[in-house]
């Protein structure tokens, strides 16, 4: 049975990619499990960089995540129904008829439905790319890369997760590790839906605690069990106590921060590969072993 673990955090920069890259490496190279990694932070995807970079691109294809309305002005009667129906203010009346503001358009198609003369059709639009690659540390990774300035990141995340499951099935994988986007919005909800467990990465700051609490609410709405990794705990021991108090037994482990973490980024090697017996690595292994116990 394939288990899907999502790594997320309410606030950015707390160490999601650090944790997910090391978790994937641990499962594959310490426990000899079959793993598929999915980078669902589609606005800033860099999981594969933390996994040793791209060794080999296996496949790459564009993703048509949205539809754009095209108005046939030879048919349009300028009745304005489409403008009134659009909930995103993406249409306004121009000289020759309604004009679409493509930056506001969500591509859902209400305008086309209400048009009494069928003057509005749709064309597919590429909003990103999906890349399957093997990383330098021999991990199969599927990455979604959203075009700059695009919305609908949630749809790209859904597609990545779907393809990750197909890939996991054909590879007979035991685990899928999903590196989610920061925040609690659409791409994060898409990352969470249907997954087995959520690992929330927290750093000892009030901003991170606040974000994590908001994320636990989302997770509970979706009925997904969550656990906490307290990362960089030694950078603020006082506030780390607050985090422990807030999440109690849900905290799997407190992981210290040291400069080897940065070295591991710089060398594009997971810390567990670079310094497997450092303090930070030991804490990571503890955390992951506990995680596997609670996920069963």
């Amino acid at each position, binding site marked *: 049975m394939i288990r899907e673990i999502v790594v997320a*955090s*309410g*606030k*950015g*920069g*707390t160490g*999601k*990619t650090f944790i997910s890259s090391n978790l994937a490496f641990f499962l594959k190279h310490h426990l000899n499990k079959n793993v598929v990694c999915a980078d669902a932070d589609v*606005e*800033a995807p*860099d999981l594969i*960089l*933390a996994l040793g970079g791209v060794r080999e691109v296996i496949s790459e294809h564009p993703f048509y995540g949205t539809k754009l309305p095209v108005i046939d002005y030879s048919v349009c009667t300028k009745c304005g129904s489409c403008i009134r*129906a659009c*909930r*995103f203010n993406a249409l306004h009346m121009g000289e020759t008829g309604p004009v679409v503001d493509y*930056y*506001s358009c*969500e591509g*859902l*198609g*209400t305008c086309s*439905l*209400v048009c009494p003369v069928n003057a509005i059709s749709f064309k597919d639009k590429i909003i990103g790319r999906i890349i399957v690659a093997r990383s330098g540390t021999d991990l199969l990774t599927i990455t979604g890369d*959203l075009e*700059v*300035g*695009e*919305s609908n*990141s*949630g749809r790209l995340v859904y597609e990545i997760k779907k393809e990750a499951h197909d890939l996991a099935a054909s590879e007979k994988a035991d685990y899928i590790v999903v590196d989610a*986007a*920061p*925040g*609690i*919005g*659409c791409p*994060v*909800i*898409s990352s969470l839906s249907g997954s087995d467990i959520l690992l929330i990465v927290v*750093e*000892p*700051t009030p*901003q991170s605690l*606040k*974000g994590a609490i*908001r994320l636990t*609410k*989302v997770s509970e*709405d*979706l009925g997904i069990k969550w656990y906490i990794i307290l990362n960089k705990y030694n*950078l*603020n021991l006082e*506030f780390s106590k607050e985090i422990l108090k807030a999440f109690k037994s849900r905290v799997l482990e407190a992981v210290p921060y040291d*400069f080897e973490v*940065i*070295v591991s*980024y*710089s060398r*594009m090697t997971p810390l567990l590969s670079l310094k497997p017996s450092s303090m930070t690595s030991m804490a990571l292994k503890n955390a992951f072993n506990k995680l596997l116990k609670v996920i069963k």
Partner: protein
Amino acid sequence: MSKIVTVAGGKGGVGKTFVAVNIANILVKLKKRSVLVVDIDVSNPCVFTLIKSDIEKRIPIKVFRPKILKDKCVLCGECVKYCPVHALLLIPAGEIIFIEALCEGCAMCLYACPYNAIVEGERIIGWINVTRDKDLIKIVYGELVPGSRQEGEVMERTLEFSKRYWDDYDFVIIDTPPGTGKAIMHAIKESDIIVSVTEPTRLGFHDLKKLHRLVRMISKQEIVVINKYGIPYGDYREIEEFVKSEELKVYKIPYNKLAIKSYFEGKPILEYDNSVKFKVLKELKKLIEEFLL
């Protein structure tokens, strides 16, 4: 005319809010300028926790949700067929089920129903908060309701709402969430200058390049802040070469005791007595004097 500044950063945790809050604070305290801070990191707005002031107004952000009139509904399934995000289901027991979490509020179902059995309802997806002016700072921040998927809409509406105050302030500083998506692009479009914050790591550099592509697409003036400059074993060469080849002006915020302390204590650097002697302040002052004033 107020000057509009967007602080962005592709990667999370590089210090966007740190930079935005400190620039605002320096403008107010040392340059006696008034500042409106617009926080559109609606997943986790934090500016108001760093510049503490009272809430003056709290406005709900509402979007369409279908209200199904059971006495009119004949279970024809047209709404289900047309809903582009599959938020409506017709179950065999003979009922239309609405899944709120999937709804994007397009109102397609309202127009698709041939029996007028769906009417206009509403749903709160977020809040716009406005603080009282304190010293010379006002904050407008958006807040996404946990569980709602429409952070883009909340970001856009917060930005739009904030415009009514823009003319009253010397500076508008827009603090953004990590990423390079549509709402961030809108903020960039509205701005005179973009401050791209990054950190000297491979991941920071990778995401800076993506953000830079977005800023260049809209042809806006961009300056780069490399935060945490000096972390041992950081990746410096690539970033330095990149900003040089793209002819971007760079400011470096050193990774020193004051910067770390103020970040973890959640206080602007000016609130520390000894801040004048630290390079963090000197560098941000230089940025303000050379580009904002």
